[in-house]
């Protein structure tokens, strides 16, 4: 068996036909779309076609789409752009404790600049409650930013409900949909969002490109300064080949949605059921049903995530973890902690995220090796010791 990639929420390979199309836009149709000569016009047309495709995929108008350098820039631009443009109206922002750092760190930055931010808690399944959003709204609130589905535990948030609330109160609503495109339906009107972030490299498109949907009429100001590209909303020579790639990726993601979901859900449930059946002392993290069709996230008690990942890697399986030791920080995943999971248990988390190339055979292989690995690490772990529990307070001095 070759290497098995089950880390699709981190990034995906670029589809071969997309990569090939991009080569053409790098080497032949390489013009600058701002140029008026034929080299420029050809690629300008391709960029606008990509914009149409992206817009169509989320039920938007092409003029409401700007291309960015990725999901992080889209999140930054959405939040800072709305905050800056509406600072006379108010200075309060509502978000949640389980957002991606691209949202959280942007909110922290704004706090340093005089904005107030409410970080809503989540329940044990990683779910934000719409009623908590309602309670947090004040006259000063200018923006609500909640992710569509969480990247670590896969929990799908009640976006449409929050969207209705936001609309009622006349508050702008931004949604980070980086993890949901191609996995659940994303329609800006049905969700009631004013701004929506997309990243290309999570949907079999190239890295370094993404887009931001900004509903017509939204008070918003750019965060990049320079050329008049993207109708003066994002400065910098357009990343033409990658934009073409993103357009193709969005079109495919939506076209294949149903069959993908069926396939992914089946594999996901096989993994969840298999792990649950064969390994003790575990817990499934995230919501049992409001869950991305490709997300599996378990905590394995008594062991640590990084050594689990390394062990899987040695068996040819690529996965990820909310362990602090995989991120270079001291604390494990802020998402798991926000769900009320203890540090110790959070450290022992494993995320397997499926993609379109994964097979049932691969799932079987994972189910075969995982129990052995967990057992081996537990045999090595002082926490697994039956007698350890009562001695817990003594862990500094035996």
């Amino acid at each position, binding site marked *: 068996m070759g290497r098995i990639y089950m880390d699709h929420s981190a990034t995906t390979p670029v589809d071969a036909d997309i990569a090939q199309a991009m080569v053409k836009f790098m080497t032949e149709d390489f013009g600058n779309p701002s140029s008026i000569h034929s080299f420029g016009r050809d690629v300008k047309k391709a960029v606008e076609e990509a914009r149409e495709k992206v817009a169509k995929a989320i039920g938007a108008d092409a003029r409401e789409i700007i291309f960015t350098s990725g999901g992080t820039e889209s999140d930054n631009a959405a939040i800072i752009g709305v905050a800056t443009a509406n600072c006379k109206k108010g200075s309060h922002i509502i978000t949640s404790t389980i957002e991606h750092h691209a949202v959280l760190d942007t909110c922290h930055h704004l706090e340093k600049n005089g904005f107030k931010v409410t970080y809503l808690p989540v329940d044990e399944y990683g779910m934000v409650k719409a009623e908590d959003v309602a309670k947090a709204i004040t006259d000063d609130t200018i923006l609500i930013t909640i992710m569509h589905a969480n990247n670590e535990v896969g929990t799908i948030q009640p976006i449409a409900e929050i969207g209705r609330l936001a609309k009622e109160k006349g508050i702008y609503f931004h949604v980070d949909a980086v993890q949901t495109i191609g996995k659940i339906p994303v329609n800006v009107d049905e969700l009631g969002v004013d701004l929506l972030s997309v990243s290309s490299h999570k949907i079999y498109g190239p890295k370094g490109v993404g887009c931001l949907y900004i509903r017509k009429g939204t008070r918003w100001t750019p965060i990049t300064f320079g050329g008049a590209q993207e109708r003066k909303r994002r400065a910098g020579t357009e990343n033409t080949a990658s934009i073409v790639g993103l357009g193709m990726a969005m079109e495919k993601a939506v076209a294949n949605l149903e069959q993908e979901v069926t396939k992914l859900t089946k594999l996901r449930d096989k993994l969840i059921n298999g792990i649950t059946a064969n390994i003790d002392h575990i817990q499934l993290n995230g919501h049992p049903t409001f869950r991305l069709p490709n997300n599996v996230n378990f905590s394995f008690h*008594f062991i640590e995530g990084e050594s689990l990942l390394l062990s899987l890697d*040695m068996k040819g399986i690529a996965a990820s973890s909310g362990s602090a*030791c*995989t991120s270079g920080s001291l604390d*494990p995943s802020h998402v798991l902690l926000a769900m009320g999971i203890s540090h110790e248990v959070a450290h022992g988390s494993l995320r397997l995220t499926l993609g379109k190339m994964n097979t049932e055979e691969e799932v079987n292989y994972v189910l075969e090796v995982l129990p052995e690995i967990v057992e081996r690490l537990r045999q*090595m*772990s*002082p926490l697994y010791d039956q007698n350890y529990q009562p001695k817990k307070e003594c862990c500094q001095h035996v």
Partner: protein
Amino acid sequence: MYSEKVMDHFQNPRNVGEITDASGVGEVGNPTCGDIMRIYLKVEDNVIKEVKFKTFGCGAAVATSSMVTEMVIGKTIDEALKITNQAVAEALDGLPPAKMHCSNLAADALHKAIEDYKNKLAG
């Protein structure tokens, strides 16, 4: 990321286990950081005859634990006390910068085990 030596010690850790009638046991670690290391010693005539470890932690934590057990076997107590975390890291051909402070605690666990042994002797 990790050197080949680290990966070797992670994959084939030396001296995993417990010593039921240990001369000394030392444990360090911090659940916040995700590392707990416990070292068991069997000391005879002031020389470390046997050593075992149990570790909950990342690849570096496992590898440093394993390495320190290899380094210490056959050493006198005094020699063992001279082994530093730095020396363990070097014996593994280095650790990634982020791991130097967080997971490089095996020598501390060893020293605690020696301390425990001395306390038992004294007490």
